[in-house]
């Protein structure tokens, strides 16, 4: 069933037990992103110092895809260098716009490859990208601060 390519077990796990879903107060940048077409909202804090992502934490409401994707993204970014982190975001964006033609590089994206199937559901790509775009935005703001 096509549905199974969207809702992999890993995703449902992240959805039920999201990582880093508790805003930390020692952030270097905070952003609030919404997905206006479905009403999903997310607040995301990053702490980036000396070019290293020290912490990512978030809170928000949204569908399983957006919640799981944000959970995966946050987990992936923590501890990476800013440059590395932004490259991972780009890699994930590429995967999302692949219309089902890519499987994703598990070495780079880890659990993120479970979201490869989303690229076949155009209306859900925004859900999957919400947390990643929020992170990217926050990371850029943090470097400016």
């Amino acid at each position: 069933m096509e549905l199974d390519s969207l809702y992999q077990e890993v995703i449902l796990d992240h959805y039920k037990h999201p990582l880093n879903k508790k805003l930390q107060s020692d952030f270097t940048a905070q952003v609030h992103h919404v997905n206006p077409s479905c009403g999903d909202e997310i607040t995301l804090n990053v702490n980036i110092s000396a070019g290293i992502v020290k912490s990512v934490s978030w809170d928000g409401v949204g569908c399983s895809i957006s919640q799981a994707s944000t959970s995966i993204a946050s987990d992936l970014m923590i501890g990476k260098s800013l440059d590395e982190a932004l490259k991972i975001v780009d890699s994930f964006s590429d995967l999302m716009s692949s219309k089902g033609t890519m499987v994703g590089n598990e070495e780079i994206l880890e659990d993120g490859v479970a979201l490869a199937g989303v690229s076949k559901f155009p209306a859900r790509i925004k859900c999957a990208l919400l947390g990643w775009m929020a992170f990217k935005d926050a990371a850029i703001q943090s470097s400016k601060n």
Partner: protein
Amino acid sequence: MKPMFSPAEIRKDFPIFSKVMRGGNRLVYLDSGATSQKPFQVLDAERNFYEQNNAAVHRGAHLLAEEASIAYEGARQVLADFLNAELDEVIFTKSATESINAIAYSFGNTAPGSRFALKPGDRIVVSELEHHANLIPWQQLAKRTGTELVWFSIDAEGRLDQSNLNELINASTKVVAITHQSNVLGTIIPLDEIVKRAHSVGAVVVLDACQSAPHFAIDVKALDIDFLAFSGHKALGPTGVGILWGRSEYLNEMEPFLTGGSMIESVTMTEAKWAPSPKRFEAGVPNMAQAVGFAAAISYLNNLGMDNVAKHEKDLTAYALNKFKQLDKVKLIGPKDNVDRGSVISFTIEGIHPHDVGQVLDQYGVAVRTGHHCAWPLMRKLGLVGTTRASFYVYNDEADVDALVDSVLQAQKYFKV
């Protein structure tokens, strides 16, 4: 009264129901609240216009221009009859959204002294049920003119609270803009007291009929309202066409909204005078083929009989409400009884986000809408991030409701809730 129609027979007129959906399923289309499907009669009418009569209306002496004008004005007559309105009161727009903006901008354009010229201290009244299309244009008008925007509240079931009617609609009120039926909850607003009160203080009533005009008979004279808007695409008609209806004495008193060709009486480099309604509000070469297609859709509905349409939807809603009440961990959002309520069922499923519900339903060919339904303030008021909404129309039947219920059970199974 005409004999009741059969949805199964009707579906044969709609080519899209031959389509094979995800998982090899048939199309169970429960998203007519967003846009309706189109019968071939509408598609044929549009095509026939292009193949036989296509020319710019009102602008040429040649045969095609004559025929195009006759077709276009004939479409206007069909719409006027549908609303029990006068011919010069019916204006073709691109959508209800444009219609409502047209009213709001026209008010804003009108010179001081006219009843439509709003000023600081004046008041515009809306409700918490509004679709963004009947909210933001008034927010903006209020901002441009320094007018106050106030609103009716709703109760827990999503019924309009009219207890403070006389305070809300007071002597400062110039406009009451309200939806006839909520696109999210199905609530139908009883208009009598609102219209009476509005007129008693000299305010005009603008009715958003997007979710009512396609579903039950509307008589603008009996409702005694002043302006009305609805879209063709939600009434079996083409995309790209809507209706603005207004009392002609008001329309001819108002400044136009869009300006350009065909809406003028005379033009110099520095000044223009306006043609009377409806031309005054139809600048440019109009959406002729869409108007013709819209009229074909209305004729199709007339043929079924609007009372039959209403009864069919009411019965189907009763069936659905009853089925939904038996579902576990599924919450109906909106009126639970079948009084003053249209054929829209909004619900939430415990533990599954609406977007995910919609996705599972899609796997079974069931097309619904999920999210805030362009009524975000209403969602906030209800404390929800969104709902799943099924909306019914003439081609739906009990088998569609059964398919919906089955797919809801599948969603619960899939997400193990």
